[in-house]
C-alpha cells in the first residue's frame, strides 16, 4: 500500500510504496531538479530529515550520516523506505533544488 510523503517546506505530497525509497518516489513524481545521485547511500546528495512517521533504512555511508544525524533522523532519502505516512524536510543539496523554481514552488504558507 502506498504511503503519503509530505515535504514540509512546500506542503507538496507524493506517494511512495513500501518497496520504494523516498528519493525514487520523489523523482518519479515528475518534479524537476531532484538531485538523484548514486541511489545507493554512498554519495550523500539526497539528505532529508524525517520529521514524522515510521520508516526502515538500509545501509548508508557514515561519511554523510553520522550517529548524531541518525539520532536526529537526518538520513539519505535513497535509503529510507516508508512504513506509514511520513513528513520530511529536505536538506543540503536537495534543499536548493526542491525549494526553488527548479523544483517545487513554496506554498503561500511556507513562503519566506
Amino acid at each position, binding site marked *: 500500500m502506498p504511503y503519503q510523503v509530505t515535504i514540509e517546506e512546500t506542503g507538496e505530497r507524493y506517494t511512495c510504496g513500501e518497496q520504494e525509497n523516498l528519493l525514487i518516489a520523489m523523482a518519479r513524481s515528475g518534479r524537476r531538479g531532484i*538531485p*538523484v*545521485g*548514486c*541511489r*545507493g*547511500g*554512498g*554519495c550523500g*546528495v539526497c539528505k532529508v530529515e524525517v520529521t514524522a512517521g515510521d520508516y526502515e533504512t*538500509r*545501509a*548508508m*555511508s*557514515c*561519511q554523510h550520516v553520522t550517529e548524531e544525524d541518525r539520532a536526529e533522523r537526518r538520513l539519505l532519502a535513497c535509503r529510507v523506505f516508508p512504513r506509514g505516512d511520513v513528513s520530511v524536510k529536505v536538506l543540503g543539496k536537495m534543499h536548493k533544488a526542491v525549494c526553488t523554481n527548479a523544483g517545487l514552488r513554496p506554498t503561500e504558507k511556507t513562503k519566506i
Partner: protein
Amino acid sequence: MAMTGVLRPGHAQLRVLNLEEGVRHYRDVLGMVETGRDAQGRVYLKCWDERDHNSLILRESDRAGIDFFAFKVLDEATLDKLERDLQEYGLTTERIPAGELMETGERVRFEIPSGHKIELYATKTQVGNGLQVTNPAPWTPAAEKGIAPVRLDHCLLYGPNIAEVKKLFCEVLGFYLVERVLGPDGEGEAAIWLSCSHKVHDIAFVEHPEPGKLHHLSFLLESWEEVLRAGDILAMNKVPIDIGPTRHGITRGCTIYAWDPSGNRFETFMGGYQPYPDYEPTTWTFDGLGEGGGLDYPQRKLHESFLTVVT
C-alpha cells in the same frame, strides 16, 4: 610501444556498504569471476580475460569509495627502482608484505597529492583466463556471463592538486598526458587523462576540493554492441544508470556509467584510439566539455550528476 616500467592497472580495492550485495553486483550482473575470500572477509574478483588472480577487491565498510588503486610493474627490480625514485622525489612509501592481498606479492604504497593511495607491485599469481595456452579457443563460457568485461581498464579519481599529481605520474612513473580539460578561466588543468601504455587512459583525475574521492572504475568491453547489451543487462537488473549509452568526445570512448549497490560509480567502456607518448595532448576548453561534446558527444551537454556525484 615497448612495455617496461609500469605495465597496467592491476587492482582496485572498493568499499561497499553490504558485502553480499556488492558481490552479487560485480559477480552476477557485471559477470566477473570470484576467485577468493580472505580472513579479513574481503572478496576477490577478476574479469574473465584477465590472467592474474584478482583485479577487484571488495571490502565491507560503513562508507563507500576506494581504498587504493594499484598498477602492476614489469618485475621486482622495476618495483625496487620505482620505490627509490618515489622516495627521491620526496614521497613516503610503505612496503606491504606479500600475501596481505591474496596471491599478491609485495606492494609499494604511497599517497599522492590528491589524497589517493596508489600501489605498485610486480607479482601476482597467474591463474589464467580459462583457456589453454596452446591452440586456445577465442573465448570461454565465462565470457558470456553477465556483462562480462574483458578487464579492469582504468579509474577516474577526484581530488585536489591535480597539477602535482600529473608531475608525479609523468616524471617518476613514466606516464604521459593524453587529453586534458582546461579550467573555466582557460588556465590550469581541471581534468587530465594519463597513460602508461597504448590506451587513451590508464588513470584520470579531476580537480576537486575533497581529497581521495572515486568517480568511477572502468571495465573494458570489446564492441559498441556489447556496451548496448550492458545497458540492457543493467536495466534488467534495475541498476541505476548515470549517463549513456553514449560516446565521449574526450578519448572517443563509448560508454555507460552506472552505480553499484553502495553508490560507487562504474563504467562499461569500449573504444578510444591508440595514443603514443610522442603525440601532442588533446586539449578541451571548459566550454568544449559541454557544448563541444567532450563529455557527451551526441547530446553535447553537461550532466550535473556526472560532474558532481562521487564517493
